[in-house]
């Protein structure tokens, strides 16, 4: 789903900076717009500033510089409890002394809603997360996944237009996490809520989001839909952070529109797509995904450059084969091939020729 419905600028970070000690900036010049109804994920390693951004939006941290707007209104001077933003916390933050139903009724109570309305809304919210029978339980009597659902229901029960989620699935096991990813995105899209989601898990970011903002060093490195992020990373940080990636160092030897030839350090020539290199002689880090490397000559474009590789290791992983190669001095060059009846298993020691489509191989900043 795209941000086409309603305002394109529901949440705006306008040149926002944040410093805790007055010297080092944790967030450097953040500009970001989130459309209404959009599911935007802030992805990045720890210390990249993504959680700080979320906390500034929630109102628990104040921006040192710049302005944050919600629905066109600046919210820098609005305290957290008046922002009307739902939030799901990493450790769920359910009130342990209240039952599940009391937890859900809490935001309605502080809004002075009538008892019968409260009950109806609490029931609806519990049903929404399939926890209808658990209203009388205490949080401690629930499993992690159930607590997670209650936290989600509590953040949604007062019908906020914006919901923030701070690594909400971090404490769950893998299977439950995958299931909850699906549930959260469905819920968010069905209710038409704008969601800002923070995670360091790239799978979560790729599978759940309309757009992903990759954070590093207090800046957004790339803001793009998941497929674009994966297939067309705009710099070497994003290429290496998202998914598995092979890198080779070289120098641009020829540029011709959206094709560039790169001379690797051992003298071999490869075809690439220039992304942020612009002139011949520039140093570049070339990035290619393991599943886009081809060693079957019949499937390569005629005339494309190929380079020599030596098979070092073959790993059987069930659905795929993972083969480690030595390519131009890089001993960690990985290729992934689908486990299919006609697929060849490469043997360690074998000498092969590999190649790729030029547009899959991106010449990035060194």
């Amino acid at each position, binding site marked *: 789903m795209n941000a086409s419905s309603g305002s394109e600028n529901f949440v705006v970070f306008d040149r926002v900076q944040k410093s805790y000690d007055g010297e080092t900036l944790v967030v450097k010049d953040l500009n970001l717009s989130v459309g209404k109804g959009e599911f935007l994920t802030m992805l990045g390693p720890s210390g990249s500033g993504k959680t700080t951004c979320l906390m500034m939006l*929630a*109102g*628990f941290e104040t921006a040192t510089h710049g302005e944050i707007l919600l629905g066109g209104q600046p919210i820098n001077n609005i*305290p*957290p*409890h*008046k*922002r*009307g*933003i*739902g*939030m799901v*916390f*990493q*450790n*769920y*933050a*359910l*009130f*342990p*002394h209240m039952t599940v139903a009391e937890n859900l009724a*809490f*935001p309605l109570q*502080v*809004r002075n809603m009538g008892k019968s309305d409260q009950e109806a809304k609490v029931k609806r919210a519990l049903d929404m997360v399939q926890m209808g029978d658990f209203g009388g339980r*205490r*949080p*401690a009597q629930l499993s*992690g996944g159930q*607590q997670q659902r209650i936290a989600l229901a*509590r*953040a949604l029960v*007062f019908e906020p237009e914006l919901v*923030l989620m701070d690594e909400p699935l971090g*404490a769950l096991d893998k299977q439950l996490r995958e299931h909850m990813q699906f549930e959260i995105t469905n819920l968010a899209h069905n209710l038409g809520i704008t969601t800002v989601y923070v995670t360091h898990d790239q799978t979560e970011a790729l599978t759940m989001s309309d757009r992903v903002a990759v954070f590093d060093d207090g800046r957004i490195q790339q803001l793009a839909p998941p497929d674009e992020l994966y297939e067309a990373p705009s710099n070497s940080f994003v290429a290496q952070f998202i998914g598995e990636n092979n890198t080779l160092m070289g120098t641009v030897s020829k540029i011709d529109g959206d094709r560039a030839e790169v001379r690797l350090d051992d003298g071999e020539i490869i075809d690439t797509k220039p992304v942020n290199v612009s002139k011949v002689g520039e140093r570049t880090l070339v990035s290619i995904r393991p599943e886009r490397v081809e060693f079957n000559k019949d499937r390569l474009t005629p005339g494309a450059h190929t380079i020599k590789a030596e098979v070092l290791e073959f790993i059987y992983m069930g659905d795929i084969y993972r083969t480690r190669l030595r390519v131009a001095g890089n001993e960690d060059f990985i290729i992934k091939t689908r486990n299919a009846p006609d697929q060849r298993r490469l043997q360690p020691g074998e000498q092969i020729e590999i190649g790729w489509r030029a547009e899959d191989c991106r010449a990035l900043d060194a």
Partner: protein
Amino acid sequence: MSSLPPYASTGQKIWFYSFRVICGLIFFFLIAPIITIIPLSFNAEDFFTFTPGMLALDPDAYGLDHYRDFFTNPDWQQPLWNSVRIAPMATLLSVAFGTLAAIGLSQSHVPFKGAIMAILISPMIVPLIISAAGMYFFYSRIGLQGTYLGVVLAHAALGIPFVIITVTATLVGFDKSLTRASASLGADPVTTFFKVQMPLILPGVISGGLFAFITSFDEVVVVLFVGSAGQKTLPWQMFIGLREQISPTILAVATILVVISIALLTTVELLRRRSERLRGMSPG
């Protein structure tokens, strides 16, 4: 229960049993003086020692005369009434200020936390006689010496450290994201305090309050300095009773105080268990 492993050496066996004996002796040393006064308080005669009749378990040797004296004699009733008026007020003040201080000191942005904490705790550490003498001079100067308010304030100052310590301990286990969650759900800071924070730190607040209450109820040194005859408390009267009258009614009073203390400490223990249960409930 730990038991002796089969491979224990002779030395270990000796230590195993002598350890138990030593523990038993320590308990005896601590409890015997308190236990002794209880039967003595039922003495029918005006003696501080066991009479031959008591040792023979003769029912006529036991009586409630001392309790009767305590509940009817104005020499005892006035101090009892004073204690009952002073201790709860002092406790109330200790709890209110102590809790606020503990919450304030748990905030990360408070400067000189260690120094502030040390000052607030100091009444517990400074020898009582020094606090009492200091308070005497200070309160005399500002006209609080010899007043009800003066004694209440002095006892509140003695009780605050207990509240600060117990509440701070409860706050250590308090999950800060709960207050954030409460704010994100639309609750203003005051609502958050009473609906979320207070119920969770209540065990610490109450047990601190009980310690403050017992401190005030048992206190004799400060009240001797700061109070006047009008504020004569129960411990003060007991002190005088021992020194001047040697009245066995003291034994009856002591027994009543022991019973009250046991009841209060039991409450503390039950609250501590409740708090542990609640903490087990908070996820993560």
